[in-house]
């Protein structure tokens, strides 16, 4: 049962082959039995899940079911869930029970989906390996000592290990695409503003975007159908119609124009990775696509711009954690300053503190123009590269990550080594574009992800391209369990 996709489970539920209560029990049991190996969940909500599953079965009996009614899934522990602990992977929020739902949480509740629990993540979504979680590292189901990627590593590992058929995720610099690649699943980061950020704990507000993780492109489309849309509670949400993302999955790719950025296929790219990506591109040619080399001349500046903008915004966003209104508070503060400084020293982990300090430095008097303003100017140059590229091509393809899943501890000594993990994903966030990672082969027994980047609001086209690829390949069907 756990090998089935969301769309297969929806069919089984519709045909009465299984009930939501049975499905929910099955997946909850599986998590309880298997997750000690992966640590992909921080919190399980069994009671709520079983109650929701019963309600879903009753709804179905009354003939009021939608495609998501009764489907079990998980939320990244960054989406606020009313009455259910939401930690964001931090000691700061270890006991935080939100008094409200994120809009994404409400979307899935209204669709009748059954949330089984909250998945592990890098603390405040800052990391590319899931090693910065206060609740312990997550293990990649493809290798005992391998990281699942990050920051949505818990969601990716849970989907890969067949503990849930789908999970929500967020992507600020690659946090959906890179773990999807490293765990051999399919993930989509939508256009900035497509999915509401309300109740999604903020890291870098001009970059953060909620998105989807599942095994197939079709399931990602089903998820996006629920998540996408305008939200008056998110001041950066975009008011634009939402198509049915499943409607265009089967369109032929004849005449599709694919661009390969030469900056992403340099001599430094591991030849084994390059070979897998080239083979995937060949499949697209067989499907009728044309391929040309393109250039993103400012791509090499993306990491530098990101590591000013993201920490600067994080330092402002995380100033709300002051030990006064909610979250962790240090013991016996001697005065207000001691309360603030010790609460934050004890409540935040090392990587979060580094980023807050870098951000505070970049925004401090005398440095703002040299860092933040300069980075925002470079950001526009990077965006302009993509705008120019999309005059010539429909989609851009590259590897999602420079290498497959690395060994735990390999990149934790120098933070900059970890930052380079996102070299192919970060420019997309700076530009605000939608992009996917799709399973496209293996290197040394570990999954490789193909990144597909689309123009603004081209999610339907991305999902169509990914779905067509999955009709002629079986990489997405390979299972580590």
């Amino acid at each position, binding site marked *: 049962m756990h090998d089935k996709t969301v769309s297969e489970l929806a069919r089984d539920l519709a045909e009465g082959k299984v009930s939501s209560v049975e499905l929910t029990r099955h997946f909850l049991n599986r998590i309880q039995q298997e997750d000690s190996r992966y640590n992909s969940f921080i919190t399980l909500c069994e009671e709520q899940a079983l109650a929701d599953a019963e309600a879903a079965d009753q709804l179905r009996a009354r003939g009021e079911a939608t495609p998501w009614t009764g489907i079990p899934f998980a939320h990244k522990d960054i989406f606020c869930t009313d009455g259910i602990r939401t930690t964001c992977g931090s000691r700061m929020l270890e006991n*935080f029970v939100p*008094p409200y739902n994120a809009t994404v949480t409400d979307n899935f509740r209204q669709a009748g989906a059954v949330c089984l629990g909250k998945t592990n993540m890098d603390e405040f979504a800052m990391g590319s390996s899931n090693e910065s979680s206060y609740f312990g590292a997550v293990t990649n189901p493809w290798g005992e000592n391998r990281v699942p990627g990050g920051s949505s590593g818990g969601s990716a590992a849970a989907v890969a290990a067949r503990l849930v058929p789908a999970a929500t995720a967020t992507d600020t610099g690659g946090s959906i695409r890179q773990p999807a690649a490293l765990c051999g699943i399919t993930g989509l980061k939508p*256009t*900035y*503003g497509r999915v509401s950020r309300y109740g999604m704990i903020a890291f870098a507000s*001009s970059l953060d975007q909620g998105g989807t993780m599942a095994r197939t492109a079709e399931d990602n489309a089903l998820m996006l159908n629920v998540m996408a849309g305008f939200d*008056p509670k998110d*001041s*950066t949400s*975009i008011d634009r119609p939402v198509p049915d993302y499943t409607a265009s999955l089967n369109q032929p790719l004849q005449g599709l124009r694919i661009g390969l950025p030469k900056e992403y296929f340099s001599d430094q790219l591991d030849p084994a990775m390059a070979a897998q990506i080239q083979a995937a591109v060949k499949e697209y040619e067989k499907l009728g696509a044309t391929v040309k080399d393109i250039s993103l001349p*400012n791509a090499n*500046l993306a*990491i*530098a*711009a990101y*590591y000013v903008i993201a920490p600067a915004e994080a330092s402002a966003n995380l100033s709300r954690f*002051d*030990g*006064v*209104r*909610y*979250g*962790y*508070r240090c013991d016996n503060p001697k*005065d*207000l*300053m*001691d*309360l*603030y*400084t010790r609460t*934050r*020293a004890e409540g935040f982990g090392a990587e979060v*503190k*580094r980023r*807050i*300090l*870098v951000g*505070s*430095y*970049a925004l*401090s008097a005398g440095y703002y123009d040299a*860092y933040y*303003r*300069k*980075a*925002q*100017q*470079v*950001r*526009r*140059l990077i*965006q302009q590269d993509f705008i120019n590229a999309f005059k010539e091509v429909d989609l851009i393809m590259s590897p999602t990550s420079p290498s497959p899943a690395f060994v735990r501890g390999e990149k934790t000594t*120098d933070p*900059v080594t970890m930052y380079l993990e996102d070299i192919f994903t970060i420019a997309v966030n*700076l*530009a*605000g*574009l939608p992009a996917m990672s799709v399973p496209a082969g293996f290197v040394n027994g570990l999954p490789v992800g193909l990144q597909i980047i689309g123009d*603004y609001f081209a999610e339907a086209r991305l999902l169509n391209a990914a779905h067509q690829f999955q009709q002629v390949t079986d990489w997405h069907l390979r299972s580590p369990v």
Partner: protein
Amino acid sequence: MAISRDDIEKVALLARIQVDDAQAAALEQDLGNILSLVDQLQAADTTGVEPMAHPLDAVQRLRPDEVTEGNQRERFQAIAPATEDGLYLVPKVIE
């Protein structure tokens, strides 16, 4: 750009994060590495380039100035570390 111990202490105070000596030494190294990474930006020619704050250059929406959320003080204060009579408690600020 190199970052000094003084800079670390100043910025830690600005960010309201207590940093001990051992941590300050490690941060000097780590932040130094991060700042040399971001210093690549200085090589870019950005003359006349408008800074970009929002990928779609959207501006803040305004809404009518009307109350839309009811008072939920008790619910919100139920998760606070310390409250009394509807107020948040902090160490004494004024003598």
